[in-house]
């Protein structure tokens, strides 16, 4: 847990509705640079929606999200500029199906950052090495295992050199034996000091690496705190019940 709150990411009273249904109720939490925050909660609790509000893939109607002092929710903000700096990893990988691993990772540097073809490819190769896929550069998504695809997904986000990484249930679509390789890459990023906001059901991972756990239920923050406190001595009964149920599934 970071000692000082530098206000790198400050989520305050964020609310969101889909039509008449309110899916987020005044959600607040903050992160410092280098922090790992894990959002947990039952499905439908709004974790993924909250995550997507941070890079504006979902639009929050109320509240404030300050990233590095800038208001993410401002209507004047250029969302493409925002997303250039905030990487995202999807549950379903969402690799570009027509591009090789290298093509997937190079597209952003080439088309968004304006690197030359060669620079973009070099950067992509370096990022794929970083996630342990130096030998699969020219493989197409369909030729890769789920774990490999997700590592390409991570490399694709890293290639933009983001200051914040969002992970939306990165291992939920994976066969159990493939989860380890993805978590290993994520562990590596934690060690490198990457600022990460993670939605996951991998409680042991959360416990190991999180500086703070935010427990969401029904679109509300039920409880948040350091993992030891949340896992060992949850203040709210609802938290305890959720963690018990998750644990019995492990």
């Amino acid at each position, binding site marked *: 847990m970071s000692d000082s709150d530098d206000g790198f990411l400050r989520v305050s009273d964020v609310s969101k509705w889909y039509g008449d249904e309110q899916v987020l109720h005044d959600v607040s939490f903050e992160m410092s640079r280098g922090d790992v925050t894990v959002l947990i909660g039952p499905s439908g609790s709004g974790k993924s929606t909250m995550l997507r509000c941070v890079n504006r893939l979902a639009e929050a109607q109320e509240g404030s999200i300050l990233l590095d002092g800038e208001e993410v929710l401002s209507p004047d903000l250029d969302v493409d500029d925002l*997303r250039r700096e905030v990487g995202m990893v999807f549950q379903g990988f969402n690799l570009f199906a027509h591009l090789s691993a290298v093509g997937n990772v190079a597209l952003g540097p080439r088309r968004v950052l304006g690197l030359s073809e060669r620079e973009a490819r070099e950067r992509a190769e370096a990022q794929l090495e970083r996630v342990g896929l130096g030998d699969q550069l020219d493989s197409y998504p369909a030729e890769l295992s789920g774990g490999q695809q997700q590592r390409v997904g991570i490399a694709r986000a890293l290639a933009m050199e983001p200051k914040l990484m969002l992970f939306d249930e990165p291992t939920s679509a994976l066969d159990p034996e493939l989860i380890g390789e993805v978590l290993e890459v994520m562990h590596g990023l934690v060690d490198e000091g990457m600022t990460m906001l993670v939605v996951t059901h991998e409680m042991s991972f959360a416990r190991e690496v999180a500086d703070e756990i935010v427990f969401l239920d029904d679109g509300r923050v039920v409880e948040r705190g350091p993992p030891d406190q949340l896992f060992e001595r949850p203040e709210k009964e609802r938290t305890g019940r959720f963690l018990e149920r998750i644990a019995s599934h492990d």
Partner: protein
Amino acid sequence: MAGATRPTTVRERVSDADVSAGRLLLVAAGVLFWGWLLVSWVNRWLGGVVVPVGDPLVAPGLVEGALASLPALATYASDAAFVVQLTPNLAQGTWLTVVITGVSLVVGFFLAVPLAVARVYGRFSAWLSLAYTELLRGTPLLAQLFVLYYGLNLGRYVPGALSGVFPRDVVWVAILGFTLNGAAYQAEYIRGAVESVDEGQITAGRAIGLSKVESIYHVVLPQALRYAIPSWTNEFVYLIKYSSLAAFITVPELYYRADQVASETFRYTLIFVVTGAMYLALVITASKLMERVDDRVAIPGLGAARER
């Protein structure tokens, strides 16, 4: 065929089992057909370097004599000579058929892609695109050609630079008509393919900072256009045959010339069987060509659904 991991497609299995004799026959027919056309065209452009302009490449008398000497084929000798006599005329008509189809298809494609994208991703533009498509698909193509040529008399407006490329300015009007009409049909095929691209693809594009338009251009279209190839080939094939409607606005293409000779000689069956065979040859060429393109741009795992 790319990728060893891809399961064998029906097409591949059939071609594996293909009797090489049948294949050889097809290739030979193709070489003969296109060889004849190309030599005829070049001969005409260069003012008769092979044979005098307007003459068949092979003398009809020669063919007639050769067939007459074979007892089994002797009864067809005079018909064959008649057909050979027609060949320069047919080759010249086929040139216009090929050009009208090719130009309309290519220009129509560049109209169809934005139309399709607008339909799927636009708001107001989606309505415009829909209106355009319904209008052009919902009214007879022949009526459209009549309006363009006889109604609006667009032949008058063909710019000087374009005039003279073809024997008649009306060819440009026909190309315009087929382009506008074909674009509507192509747009429908491409729209279907665009819709079949997973939504997560565009989300992933947006997430790395591509704008919506960039995501469509760099992510959605490269996939959608690959998906579209087999159904788009239908439009290619249709257009080859629909181009015969240009005859009704006096474009001297293949059908026009066949009809002209038939009404002069009353040998309708023979002439239209031969003409039909020529359209068939063009259609087979088109579908073989697009099969090639499809294989060439194939990406492992992409579009596997359509091959199932």
